[in-house]
């Protein structure tokens, strides 16, 4: 890969990551997409499986 192509690719990736950052920060206002917080003591962590 030439230097110019490498630089362009890195720039594009940086821009994409910036977008991920903005969307991620906005999204996190509404909750964690990975559901990492502990559940109340009475609950468990199972989820109903969907049929495939």
């Amino acid at each position, binding site marked *: 890969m030439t230097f110019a192509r490498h630089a362009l*690719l*890195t720039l594009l*990736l940086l821009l*994409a*990551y910036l977008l*991920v*950052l903005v*969307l*991620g*920060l906005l*999204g*996190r206002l509404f909750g*964690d*997409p*990975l*559901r*990492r917080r*502990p*559940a109340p003591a009475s*609950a*468990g*962590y*199972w*989820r*109903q*499986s*969907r*049929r*495939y």
Partner: protein
Amino acid sequence: MSTTALGISSYYHDSAAAVVEGGHIVAAAQQERFSRRRHDAGFPALAVASCLAEAGRKLDDVDVIAYYEDPRLKFSRVLATYLATAPRAWSSFRRSMPEWLGWKLRTLGVVHDELARLDLGAVPPIRRFRHHESHAASAFLPSPYESAAVLCVDGVGEWATTTLWHGRDRRVEPLRELRFPHSLGLLYSAFTYFCGFKVDSGEYKLMGLAPYGRPVYAPLIREKLVDIRPDGSFRLDTGYFEFLYGQVMTGRGFAELFGGPRREPEGPLTEREFDLAASVQLVTEEIMLNLAAAARELTGERRLCLAGGVALNCVANGKLVESELFDEIWVQPAAGDAGGALGAALLAANGPRDHLGSGRDGMRGARLGPGYDADRIQVYLDAQGLPYRRLATDELRSTVAGLLAEGKVVGWFQGRMEFGPRALGGRSILGDARNAEMQSTMNLKIKFRESFRPFAPIVLAEHATEYFDLRQDSPYMLIVAQVAEQRRLQQAGTEHLRGLDLLRARRSQIPAVTHVDHSARVQTVAQDTDPDLHGLLTEFHARTGCPVLVNTSFNVRGEPIVATPEDAYRCFMRTDIDALAIGRFLLLKSDQPPWHEDTDWRGQIPLD
């Protein structure tokens, strides 16, 4: 008309292929055995070609290609992780995104193109299944049960990390799941990494290390790392892990919790690693028992089927058997992702489970890889001008049994190759389990691996309970049992031994296969699944009164198990193996011409 399906798993870890016709498994093999690269994750071209050849099929005869996971769903998990962790995961993002956007998102198209390139005919349509659906199918459909509870536990596939299913007839019905990042496989891998072993392959070593330690860190793990609920579910506190952000598993928080940085790979093992291994093993067993209890409750079944990488934790499986939560358990021998190829193919073919009538499972001893007939072996031996003796079956058994009884180590290459990580008597190295020196001889002079690692016994199924406290058959070496009380020895003056010094005590009448806590990873050998190995054990039993032998995989450390006669001869000559029984041909080391290689082969095999 029955459907012929070709299953494929690839591009993560341990690529594999499988051919299923109707409900009948015809062939299955891992790419690493052919490419000679351990855990090869590339497209399994050689495995596909081998499976089709074993089945006597071309791609034209295949009705459907079954891919073992859903790449787009997996991508949604990767993306959600970046959204949740930005800006901390930039370096991982920069590395993985070009791959995802470049080709991984269109994995099914890439699989199509790779298959077309094989020149084996037109490529049939490709169906994809869910990662855990493939695991669940591989656990239940070949099992010997009409119906059963099914539990799949691994690192992660798409989103699911732990799933419960109800297997009935030809179907596996999904019930409950836990999702990334809450994963028992990743918890175990984090400790594997922290103890200086390789993730996705060093987990066995951690399990083998556990009996040398005490589970002093288990309360800390339960308090800080994993929140276990009474309903069997659990959650990881990801603040202590690094796997969300990049390529390493643990960081500073984890190190602070466990008194300092991780052990350097190949560095000295200390009491801390022994205790960490014992602790995470204990917590893993607790979680597995909880999950099994949940599966029991949800399904009401009395039998359990297991798959997913964590199902290879045979110590935990042994605890499950001991718990009597279920009457019996059955573990898919290729429980890791290689088995996904088989599960997907079984789902796509969706044939009748004809093996149910036989009382056996549908895996045929996991001997699903390529086999070599006498002509093929002889052509090779003659072409190389190698000295051998061709023996009748009985003669071979009695000669090999005699060699083993003298303390010799024998390479045993018979019939079809095993599918899954264990050698089960097709590509094995055998030795006398009564010999106190055998464990260190095999570790240091044959396998070139760490001295702490235990070896597994094979035992005649009909004599298993005389030597082991085992409630059920263990045909795939996936259940650990205690050596029976009457076979154990208490050696005076060894009570104070700790850590690796424990190895110095003679622990039983079969010391080579008795771990320091008197456990053993048993394989029971039945006459109908492996007449060759059963015959050899019977002969050895008749000679010595002992129905047990050491069985370890035919390879050296870091190398895939041998596949071909060529591989077997090379491994035989590179190591201190005394004799090689390959089909009906017996080769003695003392008769062989001197072996030399121009390059340093040890330097070319990466450490595992």
